[in-house]
């Protein structure tokens, strides 16, 4: 059901854990639905210098969170906003169809984190 890459990211999640000195946190999902993702970012010169996550959810939710952090690290905020669910799923060599939506919330979490970060500096995504 899950690809080898999904299994790898599930078993060895990259950039896992709380970030005490995060510049922003994006929270998405809902424990009632079985998935909750928090994305922590550190930003310098509009570049994501560090990123981490905490996730309550199934293997797909954990693996997509992990993959997202790998994809986003080092990207500018503008580039990072372009990361889609589809791109994450493809980088993971695919997800089971039933998991494509509900458990693939990591990109949303990153969006929220970036918005929060921009908000703190009085900007919106349009200003990037």
């Amino acid at each position: 059901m899950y690809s080898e890459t999904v299994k790898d990211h599930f078993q060895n999640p990259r950039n896992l854990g709380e970030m005490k000195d995060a510049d922003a946190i994006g929270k998405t999902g809902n424990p009632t639905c079985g998935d909750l993702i928090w994305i922590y970012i550190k930003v310098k010169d509009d570049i994501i210098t560090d990123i981490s996550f905490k996730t309550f959810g199934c293997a797909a939710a954990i693996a997509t969170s992990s993959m997202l952090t790998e994809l986003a690290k080092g990207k500018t905020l503008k580039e990072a906003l372009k990361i889609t669910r589809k791109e994450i799923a493809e980088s993971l060599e695919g997800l089971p169809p039933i998991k494509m939506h509900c458990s693939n919330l990591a990109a949303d979490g990153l969006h929220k984190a970036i918005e929060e970060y921009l908000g703190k500096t009085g900007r919106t995504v349009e200003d990037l």
Partner: protein
Amino acid sequence: MVERVNLNHAAGNPVDKRVLKGMLPYFQEFYGNPSSVHIAGRHATKAVANARMQIVNLVGADTKDRIVFTSGATEANNLALIGFAYRNRRKGNHIITSEVEHLSILNPLKFLVKQGFEVTQIPVDEHGVIKLEALKEAITDKTVLFSVQHANNEVGTIHPIQEIADIAGDAKIPLHVDAVASAGQVPVDISDLGASLMTLSSNDLYGPRGVGALIIRRGTSIQPILLGGGQEMGLRSGSENVSGIVGMGIAAEIAGKELEANIRHLTKLRDRLIKEVTTKMEYTYLNGHPSHRLPNNANIRFSFVEGEAITLYLSFEGFLVATSSACTSRTLEPSHVLLSMGVDEAEAHGALQLTLGRDNTETHIDHFIKALPPIIKRLREMSPLYPPS
């Protein structure tokens, strides 16, 4: 590969080797059809009749009751509900069931609602036990059938089935008992209960898949749902799966004979499993009734983590388990059984259904209770819900 430890017998039992041995001649040597008049046909007819007796004996039925072999418990439940409702429609259109029935009960009832029937679903208490007062109150003069499980396959709770049967009996309402999860696990006696219909599954008795039975007691009329050549006393058409039926019969006989020994064996393993898991980890709780529960079932929930993830980590270490988490269901909805018991939705996602089988040993339990805590710990460390604030 790691040794595999199956703690997911609810998903399927291996066929008992004595059962398989008894079935084998019916694939190639005795492949007669009970409909044939010649010797091969008569041999098949006898084999099927013998299997009926083995079913009769397991559940204390009467030789005059009809044992209709089906393709499984799902078909037997569909036959019991749709076949009974259609046949007895002029007597009334109201059926009472519980909130925690298997989908092979709830979905046929939804279908019947579309056909003009009314269905009342009785709630359960926090242990998953059907509320008897609500059951009594639900009876109307249009009620034609109770359909109630003996035990819940998911959380293991055994309902007070004799009391339920007495309520049905006092109101003169026929009772259908889904005994799939209980038969072969605890004593089941259809005569004592006075039930009219009972569903059994072969594989839950360590017989082959693809076979089940509906027991129809004398005086109960149903109409068939699979129509054709009129096999199984006209109640279930289709060439008989003789090898499968023979297998279910043997499985029933063994299940009856070894019931006490299995109860002892499984209860011991189960009690240790529940105790070790729920006491050694915090935020860890038993689902279902603490004492009125199936000997093979331990349903345990772990706050702040999701069940599919636990299941997968366990499977990497060779343990096969199931979860009530929505993430593994076809509908992506959390278990209706846990929700009905009042378990919080987020918590419901973290439930593991551990179902033991005859092949499990103390060593399996040893390994499991060693393997589980680090996995739960790791997943909690990943979870934004933990530590709880």
